[in-house]
Structure formats: C-alpha cells, structure tokens
C-alpha cells in the first residue's frame, strides 16, 4: 500500500474515511487523492447525497396500511380480554 492510494482503494475505504477510523497517514493520502481526482470526489458527493435522497424518496405514505389497522384492532381486542 503506497502513500497515495489508487481510485479503487479510495472507493473501498470512503465510508471508513468519512467516519474517521482510518490511520492519519491513510486519511491524508485519501484527502489528497480526493483533491486531485474528480471521479472519486464525485463518488464521495454521491455517497453523501444518497441518504438525503433516499430519505426524501422513501418518506412513508400518510395512509395507514390496512394490515396495520388490522393488527391494531387485534391488539386492542387482546387488551380488552386482559382487562378484568
């Protein structure tokens, strides 16, 4: 492993890099690589954009699924039986 990591190395280690768990020398190597490599910097931007994109896209619908309403009714019925 050289001081300046390859694009493949950078991609593989980006999550560890963003969580700050890599050794300092490796972090510096990746940091410099990201300054110089547009493709890897774009990959990092994509990785950072993904959670927000996914959260917004997967916001649960307002409507309560029928199955959930049924489960609640069953739990309420069970609670009624438990109550003396």
């Amino acid at each position: 492993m050289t001081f300046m990591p390859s694009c493949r190395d950078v991609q593989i280690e980006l999550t560890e890099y963003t969580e700050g768990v890599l050794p300092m020398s490796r972090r510096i190597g990746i940091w410099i690589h990201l300054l110089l490599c547009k493709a890897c910097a774009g990959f990092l931007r994509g990785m950072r954009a993904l959670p927000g994109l996914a959260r917004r896209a997967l916001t649960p619908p307002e409507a309560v699924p029928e199955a959930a309403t049924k489960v609640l009714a069953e739990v309420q019925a069970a609670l009624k039986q438990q109550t003396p």
Partner: protein
Amino acid sequence: MKEIPPTEAELIQRAATGDSDAFGALVRPHLALFHNGINRILGNDADTQDALQDALMSIHRDLPRFEGRSRFSSWGYKVCLNAALMMRRSRVRIHDMERPEPLALGPFDERGHHLVPAHLPEWQEEARAHNLVERQELRECLTRALDELPDSHRIVFVLKDLEDWETEDIARHLQLTPGTVRQRLHRSRTVLQARLRTFVLGGRP
C-alpha cells in the same frame, strides 16, 4: 356543544390503565410511521405484521414507564424498531456473520485508477435529482434497489443512512463488529449509488 378531544397525555394515562379505546386513539395517528419503520427493516409483510403486533403490545406494557421526556411518536417508533430488530435476530443466518468482499465502481486500470473517468457518475447534478424526488419513479427505483440488497446489508443501510443511528449502536444491536457494519454500509451505498446514478443523470436505471 362539541366535546373536547382528550390530549395525548390523557390518552397515555387512560391507555396505561387498560383502556383499549384510548390506546387505539393514542396509536392510530402514528400507525403508518410505526408500520413503515418496521417494514423498512424486515422487508416483508408477514414479518412486519408480527413485529408490529409485538411492538404495540410492548408499547402498551411500557406505557406506565413512559415519562414524556420525548414525544410519544419518537418513543413508540424506537420500540417498533427494536421489535423489528428482535424479529430479525430470530431469523439471522450464519452467512450474516461473514464480512463482504470490498466493492468499487470501475472500470479501473492495472494500477487501480479509473479507466474511463468521463463515464463515472457526476453528482454535481444532485440538485436535479432533488427535483425528481417526489416522482414515483425514483421511489420505485430506490425501493427496488433496496429490495435487491441482501437482508444483512439493507438493514445496516436503513439504520445508518435512513434512521441516522451511530455505527456502534448498529453493531451492538446486530451483534456485529463496527468494521463489519462499515463494510456492509459501504457496499450498500456503492450498489445503491450505481443503481441510482443513471436515474439521477436522467437515464434509466
């Protein structure tokens, strides 16, 4: 004269003493949130219903201990996620303990550098993706991509990137090392990014 509806605190008090109607009125406004939180983790309807039932029973059982420091919906949501994790743990498979192979989006040359940088995703266009977010197509694409992830990876992505859990908490709940959590998270992010990039750039996934 119109009757004033009971407050959430009143409903909690009544539900805690066994009033099942109050329990229904308390839970119903948050039922979609609870159901969908569980479903994101378990990914199938039958298990989701079982975990939701367990979670609602737990919520009812623990209501006397709910001190109101957080909102009821947040507290209840946590109970639901825990129920989903418990359900998942009961069907954990041996291969879930394996560490995944590293994954990177190539192609790379023999030194590991990008071969065709021009063909790589350019997320500078992410603003455009945000305008697309409301579109059903993106939701479907993401849902499909998430469904295609192995169960052991999807749960890590959901907890970290959608639910905002700390890596160490995920590791503790899933009985994994933090390193394995990061590996799975990274693989999930890479796969999802690969699936979404063409979509974001206006192509077809």
